[in-house]
């Protein structure tokens, strides 16, 4: 599981460098995210632009990361590809996440809120 984390504009941006987030790697994703978010950052942005396929296990793992951060910290999602977007839409989980078109969009929103 390849996850790359970097601090940008006060947010922790985590890129999931995997073509799939599914039943085969969802648990590993959760475990690695738990370590990564040990870093202090008020806001975590998950860059999902490389993920071409997400199933219900992958979705559950993303929800569990959101719950690890709540209630003090926030998880934003960015760069959902069409297939991934469809899963969020069908399950209506797009109503509980802040979803941005790209990481730069997500960061711009953060700057605006801060200003």
């Amino acid at each position, binding site marked *: 599981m390849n996850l790359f984390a970097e601090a940008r504009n006060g947010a922790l941006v985590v890129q999931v460098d995997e073509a*799939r987030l*599914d*039943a*085969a790697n969802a648990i590993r994703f959760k475990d690695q995210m738990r370590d990564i978010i040990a870093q202090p950052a008020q806001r975590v942005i998950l860059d999902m632009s490389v993920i071409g*396929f997400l*199933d*219900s*296990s992958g*979705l*559950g*793992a993303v*929800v*569990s990361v*959101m*719950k690890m951060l709540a209630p003090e910290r926030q998880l934003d999602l960015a760069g959902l590809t*069409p*297939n991934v977007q*469809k*899963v969020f839409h*069908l*399950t*209506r*989980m797009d*109503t*509980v996440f802040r979803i941005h078109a790209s990481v730069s969009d997500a960061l711009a929103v953060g700057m605006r809120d801060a200003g």
Partner: protein
Amino acid sequence: MLANRVAEKEAFRRTGPRHDPQIFHHSFVADPMSVRQALRAALARFLRQLSEDEAGTLELILAEVLNNIVEHGYGDGLPGTITLSIVRDRRGLSCSVSDDGVVLPASALLNPADPAQSRPDPASLPEGGFGWCLIRDLAEDLGYHREGNHNLLAFRIPLVAPLPTAAP
């Protein structure tokens, strides 16, 4: 040489549908990596006949059905086999999946009058329970049959494009 290749490609493009595969059949060990491989193989078989959206739907439904068998049908690392068959017909992709795992709970197939009753409430931040909702949302003619120790699940994935007809 290059002209030959172009001519071949053109010939393939014109007569291709005649050779488009109509059937996929695959038996594999019930574990997550074998499911991934089966998905890749099934998708590769039908990719030319599918839009990007349809390919995504096919992969999602199959992933949910197959991983459900791995996690709940067999479960706890018990060894098992899954057989997946897909046939391209006039109305889409007709799929059947069989395994020797435990009986599928009736609740999985229920589609109550109020569909909201059977799906996880997003506000409660559910981490599971999405799988069967996705299957019921995306698949048609979902049917289940238990025969002896076998489970047989059948469903159809509708496709927009008509069934390719043989070239004259």
